[in-house]
């Protein structure tokens, strides 16, 4: 024992502080949440097992006229449009700043990144002002070209589209920085060889650049998909009322069930549905990465 401690004591001492907080505030909560998802839990009486054991998962999908199903649909719609736009815009802008001088490239990267350092909450608030039906900038633009004003965030038919539009118009800073780095590390020989074959600029971009940054694209798709699955602040602050559940998402449902209705069991079950969706995306990523290009 003494010899063991002399040999390994320092190693355990080095990891002790982080492992302690990790165990208490991550590991135990994750496992406990899984248990609670099969229980009826009240703060006064603790958890009690229920029958059938999966009842929370049934309730999660069926309660309130299957509101959770609609929330998943809303989340997926938001995700598909946001991720597609972020990848296309990120790739296009990174490609456009790549040929610039170092100084200009740094300037644009910084300009695009600046909004990303402020909180999702404040960004959501600024978009709520832009989409304000009365004095917002969006309706001002419509007025200028002679169109009637739109109730961007209070009309249930378009509130989700407005929130999604705000996410599309938020320039994808991480994508630009990572694409930029990936493009900078492509060996020059590839382009020189293509020059000898007389390839045009666009041909070289499509046949050399785009395939060689595939792993960055894949990483960004996963990153943005998971972030979109977990969208909350933007919704919470842009559409506080939820306009007839038109903008309920997975996380707003978890929040409402857990901390407004104190229905911990159902909220935990819904959180694990989110977990499964995120895990599925991660698994798909690893599948693709196995057949990845090397250069």
């Amino acid at each position, binding site marked *: 024992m003494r010899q063991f401690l002399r040999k390994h004591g*320092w190693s355990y001492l080095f990891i002790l502080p982080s492992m302690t*907080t990790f165990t208490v505030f991550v590991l135990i909560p994750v496992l406990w949440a899984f248990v609670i998802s099969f229980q009826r839990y009240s*703060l006064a009486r603790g958890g009690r097992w229920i029958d059938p054991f999966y009842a929370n998962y049934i309730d999660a999908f069926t309660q309130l006229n299957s509101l959770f199903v609609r929330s998943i649909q809303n989340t997926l719609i938001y995700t598909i449009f946001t991720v597609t736009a972020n990848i296309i815009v990120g790739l296009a802008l990174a490609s456009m700043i790549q040929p610039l001088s170092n100084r200009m490239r740094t300037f644009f990267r910084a300009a695009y990144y600046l909004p990303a*350092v402020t*909180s999702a*909450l404040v960004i959501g608030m600024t978009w709520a002002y832009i989409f304000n039906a009365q004095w917002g900038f969006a309706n001002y633009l419509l007025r200028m070209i002679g169109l009637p004003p739109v109730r961007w965030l209070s009309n249930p038919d378009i509130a989700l589209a407005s929130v999604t539009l705000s996410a599309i118009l938020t320039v994808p*800073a991480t994508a630009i920085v990572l694409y930029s780095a990936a493009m900078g590390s492509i060996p020059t020989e590839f382009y020189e060889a293509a020059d000898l074959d007389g390839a045009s600029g666009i041909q070289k*971009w499509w046949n050399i650049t785009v395939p060689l940054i595939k792993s960055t694209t894949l990483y960004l798709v996963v990153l943005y998909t998971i972030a979109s699955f977990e969208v909350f602040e933007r919704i919470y602050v842009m559409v506080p009322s939820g306009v007839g559940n038109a903008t309920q998402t997975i996380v707003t449902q978890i929040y409402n069930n857990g901390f407004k209705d104190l229905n911990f069991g159902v909220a935990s079950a819904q959180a694990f549905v989110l*977990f499964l969706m995120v895990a599925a995306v991660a698994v798909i990523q690893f599948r693709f990465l196995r057949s990845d290009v090397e250069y």
Partner: protein
Amino acid sequence: MATTTTSMTTTGVSWPARLRRVNWGVWLVLAVTTVIALFPMYWLFVNALTPITSTPPLTPLLWPAFKLENIQRLLGGTKFYTQWMINSLFIAFVITAFHIVFDTMAGYAFAKRRFPLRNLLFGLVLSTLMIPIHVTLIPLYIITRSLGLIDNIWAVILPGTAQVFGIFLMRQYIQTLPSELEDAARIDGASEFGVFWNVILPLCRPAMAALAIFTFVRNWNDFLWPLIALNKPQNYTITVGVANLQGEFMTDWGIIFAGAALAALPMIIFFLAFQKYFLEGVRMGALKG
């Protein structure tokens, strides 16, 4: 031939020669997207710096009046705005300090030392990296409540010290450092802690800077857990406080604009001051946006 060689060497980065000649269309796209990227934040500051006491003007302001009335009314009208700033600063600072010290230690142990259960423990850490924090919210609430910490800023700080990304980042970084330096120090009679402190720590500065920036920004901007854990206005973080301004000052938009703008200002200044480290941090995988 001569033209292609010069065009290849001007920036050191290879790029198709035809795309190198940037035309006005590209500049136009870059200019328009820069305006779209920065406009929401700019407009927020324009409104915050123009005296507005009720509904903002129907023709949107595009240039600030550079008057501080809204901010004065914000600081005079809300009892706790500066307290929210102090709370957020304290929370982000303590969490960052914890991670810089202890994630570096843990990252070093996982990267360089051999001990029983090492792979199992690191595997556990790694496997939780992708779990949405929303899974843990309810047990976290029960745990912090039983610790008597609900409505106390330590309810935000303690779970914040458990974010595992830093352990992963520091391990990746320390793995790339050569082991010869440690061995040499050991032969010279350095203690195990001395090896860490005098040999490893000085080499970790770039990764520690990225981790510090990432942790600070993330926790300053954090919203959902503080919203759940803090109830009394004097205990709010800046994000929770600002989110509640709209309920408190329904129609006094000047105060709301000023509150949101001031909440964003510290991170904007922070970014402009440490821009290089931020973008380096994104490349190391530390920052999202």
